[in-house]
């Protein structure tokens, strides 16, 4: 009797501890962002921008498109509504899944600039829960008019590691003055509040530029990507003249990499100041979740 009783107790204990051992606590859902500089100009109604996240659960309620009630971008008290076209989920070689949100600004304008130095993607779910994710710097330009005085023949970039991350280090542009007038280029800039063209170091070049040359080597002097020294430019261009320029970048914010951006060239034609805008172009294409971006990642635990 005692042996049977003992065996019964041991069996119960074995089942209990076995069950406790086998049932692991379910890990909380995590969403990871890699803050990025978004610099876009409205092109067509079919154009979308993408916000990419990592998640440890591809089937969670919080990554399903049908769970999302509302999406908006916020910066301090400012807010813009967004339209969600779709969410795509991709496997990765890690235990994380890539969540790709295709988004649009939910209104249209002929002349409007959204300039959020620190943008948060605010997601409201159908269960009324709100999640706010830091996605970086968001710049979006609606501008229906553009000048035809200026144009470019070739447009490329130079690349090197800045602060440990491979990024665009400079722009190489063959700028053409198509107007019949002499003009003065006053500024070349990027549609960004933190990343700019360093006007002081723009130089005219006459030979092809190696895309992977170190900027300091090219300029034959020390060059810092972080010293903010932006000054007005005074670049004279005769009527119908073409100039090949190399324009180094400066990174003045927390994010020291950029892949795709709008260029804005300001010039004086007679007494009138005008701007020429070059649509956002993807100078480079890589994953913002590569290991080199690890210090840039922001991880949110969703409970």
């Amino acid at each position, binding site marked *: 009797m005692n042996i049977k009783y003992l065996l019964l107790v041991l069996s119960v204990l074995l089942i209990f501890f076995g069950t406790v051992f086998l049932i692991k606590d379910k890990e909380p859902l995590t969403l990871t962002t890699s803050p990025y500089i978004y610099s876009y100009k409205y092109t*067509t109604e079919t154009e979308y921008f993408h916000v990419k996240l990592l998640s440890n659960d591809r089937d969670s309620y919080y990554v399903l498109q049908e769970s999302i009630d509302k999406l908006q971008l916020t910066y301090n008290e400012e807010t813009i509504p967004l339209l969600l076209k779709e969410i795509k989920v*991709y*496997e990765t*070689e890690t235990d994380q899944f*890539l969540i790709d949100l295709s988004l649009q600004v939910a209104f249209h304008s002929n002349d409007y600039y959204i300039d959020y130095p620190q943008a948060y993607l605010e997601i409201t779910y159908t269960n009324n829960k709100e999640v706010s994710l830091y996605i970086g710097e968001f710049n979006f330009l609606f501008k229906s008019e553009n000048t035809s005085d200026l*144009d470019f023949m070739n447009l490329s970039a130079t690349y090197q590691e800045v602060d440990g991350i491979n990024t665009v280090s400079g722009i190489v542009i063959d700028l053409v003055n198509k107007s019949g007038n002499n003009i003065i280029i006053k500024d070349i800039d990027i549609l960004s509040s933190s990343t700019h063209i360093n006007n002081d170091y723009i130089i005219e070049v006459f030979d092809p530029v190696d895309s992977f040359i170190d900027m300091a080597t090219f300029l034959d002097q020390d060059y810092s990507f972080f010293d903010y020294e932006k000054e007005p430019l005074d670049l004279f261009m005769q009527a119908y003249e073409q100039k090949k320029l190399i324009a180094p970048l400066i990174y003045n914010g927390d994010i020291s990499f950029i892949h795709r951006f709008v260029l804005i060239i300001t010039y004086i034609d007679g007494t009138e100041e005008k701007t020429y805008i070059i649509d956002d*172009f*993807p100078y480079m294409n890589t*994953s913002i979740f590569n290991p080199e971006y690890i210090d840039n990642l922001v991880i949110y635990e969703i409970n």
Partner: protein
Amino acid sequence: MKKLFIISLIFFGFSLHNVIVHAGDYTTYQEIKFKHNGAKLLSQYATSDYKDLYSRLGKRRFWGWRTFVWFKEEPAYYTRDTLYVIINKGTTPINEEITFTRESIITKQYDVSGSIGIEVDGKKSGFKLGLEGKIDFSASVSEKITVEEKYEIEIDVDPNTKLEIKIMGEAKVTNGVAKFYRFWVQAKKGGFEIFVVTTEYYSIVKVPV
């Protein structure tokens, strides 16, 4: 003993089958240049290279791979075909909305020589017989499924002008040789290569026609 001999023959027979090789697209790229002098692609291995590298593989084994990695994650730059071309044959400038789609994530491609095989399973490919797991290789591949992203760009194109979007890229190349043994019998041997595209770079070129 007889059974073992028959099984051995069957395995040996399998190893004599011809291998259909599906090399990665990178073998057709216009130009691949290594950052460091001396590095080579598998397709550039000389017969003497194979002889030297096979001698470094070590002794036969009962079962499985012996591998030797010659170049490990060597940085390389490449030039690909032109991505987009438009020619304005008209007499007035056009304002063109260019649309193109690219894979936005790392892609891994493979090449082999000799009797080493590549297998394709859906969108994924890799070496046969689990060779990749036996290679001392830790390329920082964080994502293997490619994500497509569509770009829309508005550009002016003058009359009699051709606009091209060019692609360059950066990759990490790992290659070497391997032999596969079954019952101490060499069943496969050849070279292998893994080409990991880490970044693509784009530029716009306009030329008069």
